[in-house]
């Protein structure tokens, strides 16, 4: 008997085009399913439909039927499905309710009316299952993104769900962290649906693959067959390897020498970091979670003053933060981009066209999809054509096609005589030079 059944599901968010169109599928107990597709294709909506959050939480037009363990999601509220289904969202900071890790894991169990004596043992067991037993008493606000994401997984596992839904759960993790995260799912009894943009991980994990595009389920096949289909029809999803074009480095645009930095009198997060970026060059700055990549990127862009060492820039720097879609300041897309160039609408329109957002000029930035908002963030920084462009995790949650397009754009930008520094976990993102930042050592070329 199927654990979950989706029949002819068509769903539109209020006032929008259908996010899912006539989707039908069945999930069997214990299955490992990879859910692939471009940003905005309907993957998250499908996961939310399986959790009952669509339509209950979001509203909208819902046609068809979704059943999980025989419960119709139209007549069963998401809170009542909790325990049968558990979902982990992309951004852990937006799902944490309580201040201490153990209490956070216990929260769902208390809601599910688990007998009090069983709550702490189950919470401890779930934390241990994701290798985070040592975090038990810590404040959630003090955890790194990776630690917090594992705690979110523990919160889901503690409920002992039959169906576990994961919406890009590794997008904030460094490669070893992401591999550990997926390894922790191996021994689970539950069926797992994993939505991922780092497709090689998802394909290695899954025994069945779904591919969604523009709301349509284009592929539902066992993993080997799916890989063949992807190689033929969506090659970037089968092989994400990208190559950097030859570089012709010019003069130095950024020189960082033996820089140190500490936040508010705390321990130093950077120690004797040294790097150089030349015009015409794209440099990737790698390192595990918490190694100081973001800090070094901000120091390079002039947003932080180092406690020691020197930073020399030739020309202006622009900085694109992690999750730029969250930091939009104007109420119209065109104004958002024009904000960085003193209201110059002509330049703003040209930048929007360059990033494929010309059609959205009059829209409110928060009405755009997350992928579109990230592109808008980049357009808002790039419009001023800074000599040095610093980007922090620009490929987080970005689909393979858009990642390739971003790489092309950055190489073209650098080829115009500017420098680009990309802080990233993504080892597949191409660069002319790669530097690795470890916690206790200076930068080393890799």
């Amino acid at each position, binding site marked *: 008997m199927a654990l979950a059944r989706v029949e002819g599901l068509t769903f539109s968010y209020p006032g929008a085009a259908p996010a899912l169109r006539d989707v039908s599928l069945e999930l069997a107990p214990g299955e490992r399913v990879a859910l692939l597709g471009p940003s905005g294709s309907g993957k998250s909506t499908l996961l939310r439909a399986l959790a009952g959050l669509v339509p*209950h939480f979001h509203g909208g037009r819902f046609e068809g039927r979704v059943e999980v363990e025989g419960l119709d999601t139209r007549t069963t509220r998401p809170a009542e499905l*909790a325990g049968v289904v558990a979902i982990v969202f992309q*951004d852990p900071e937006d*799902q944490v309710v309580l201040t201490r890790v153990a209490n956070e894991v216990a929260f769902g169990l208390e809601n599910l009316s688990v007998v009090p004596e069983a709550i702490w043992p189950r919470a401890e067991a779930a934390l241990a299952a994701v290798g985070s037993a040592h975090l038990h008493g810590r404040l959630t606000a003090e955890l790194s993104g990776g630690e917090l994401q594992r705690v979110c997984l523990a919160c889901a596992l503690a409920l002992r769900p039959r169906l576990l839904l994961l919406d890009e759960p590794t997008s904030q993790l460094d490669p070893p962290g992401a591999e550990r995260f997926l390894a922790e799912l191996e021994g689970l009894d539950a069926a797992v649906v994993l939505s991922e943009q780092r497709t090689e991980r998802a394909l290695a994990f899954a025994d069945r693959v779904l591919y969604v595009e523009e709301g349509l389920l284009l592929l539902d096949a066992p993993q080997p067959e799916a890989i063949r289909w992807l190689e033929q029809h969506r090659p970037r999803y089968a092989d994400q390897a990208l190559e950097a074009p030859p570089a012709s480095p010019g003069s130095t645009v950024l020189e960082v020498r033996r820089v140190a930095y500490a936040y508010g009198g705390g321990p130093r997060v950077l120690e004797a970091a040294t790097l150089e970026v030349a015009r015409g060059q794209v440099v990737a700055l790698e390192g595990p979670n918490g190694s100081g990549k973001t800090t070094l990127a901000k120091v390079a862009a002039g947003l932080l003053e180092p406690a020691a060492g020197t930073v020399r820039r030739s020309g202006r720097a622009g900085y694109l933060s992690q999750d730029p879609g969250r930091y939009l*300041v104007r109420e119209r897309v065109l104004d958002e981009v024009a904000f*960085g160039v003193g209201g110059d609408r002509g330049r703003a329109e040209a930048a929007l066209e360059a990033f494929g957002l010309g059609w959205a000029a009059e829209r409110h930035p*928060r009405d755009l999809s997350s992928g579109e908002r990230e592109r808008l963030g980049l357009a808002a920084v790039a419009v001023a054509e800074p000599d040095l462009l610093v980007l922090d995790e620009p490929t987080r949650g970005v689909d393979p096609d858009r990642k390739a397009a971003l790489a092309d754009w950055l190489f073209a930008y650098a080829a115009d005589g500017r420098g680009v520094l990309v802080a990233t976990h993504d080892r597949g993102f191409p660069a002319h030079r790669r530097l690795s930042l470890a916690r206790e050592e200076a930068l080393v070329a890799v």
Partner: protein
Amino acid sequence: MRLSPAPAALVLAAVGATALLARNVTSLAILAAALLVLCLRAPARSRALYLFGAISTGLSVFLLSPFLWVGGGSVLWSGPILPVLGPLDVTTEELAIAARNGLRLSALGLAFSAYALLLDHDRLVAAVPFARRSALAVALATRLVPSLERDARGLAEAVRGRGVVLSGVRGNARLVSPLVAGSLERASNLAEAMEARGFGRPGGTRAPRPAWTSLDRVALGAASALVVAGALWL
């Protein structure tokens, strides 16, 4: 040995109530100083905003109220007579009242700061025997301050990263609207995550928590006595 969160919250509420009832400036100064010392136990980075808010509001009241309230005969300084406001004299009595009100406000702000910075809000929520959803809403609202601060820092950085310099009150005021919009979005995401974890189901249980200690009971007794003292003698 430390107080349990619920008695600690009640003690802080009692100290706040005492600050409102007390009339003696020295008593109020001692209360405010004690609360300040308590708040200094919080990490420097997280306490800065709270302390600034609590102290600056009290200081503003102390500095402005002598000019806005007219009373007393011991004139220390004679200023001009302004329309609407009247004479801008400063008297000893006005200064005493300004100091009292300023210290009251600061003490209240510091009591809230200690509550927000030092207490385990999870256990507070768990300790509330009724209206658990409302208690959780209060705890989440308390946590809003640090997340707003983090978002404000991110917004300011994003703007500077575009080469735009926002200065002065007017410049920074442009960030208020996106900050509010961002907070609403964050709140909506959190609400969705909570519902997915069963929040709102009827019933619900509580994980076992440590019982109150004798220190908790003694502290509550002392806090009650402090309120009475504040009303009668301080």
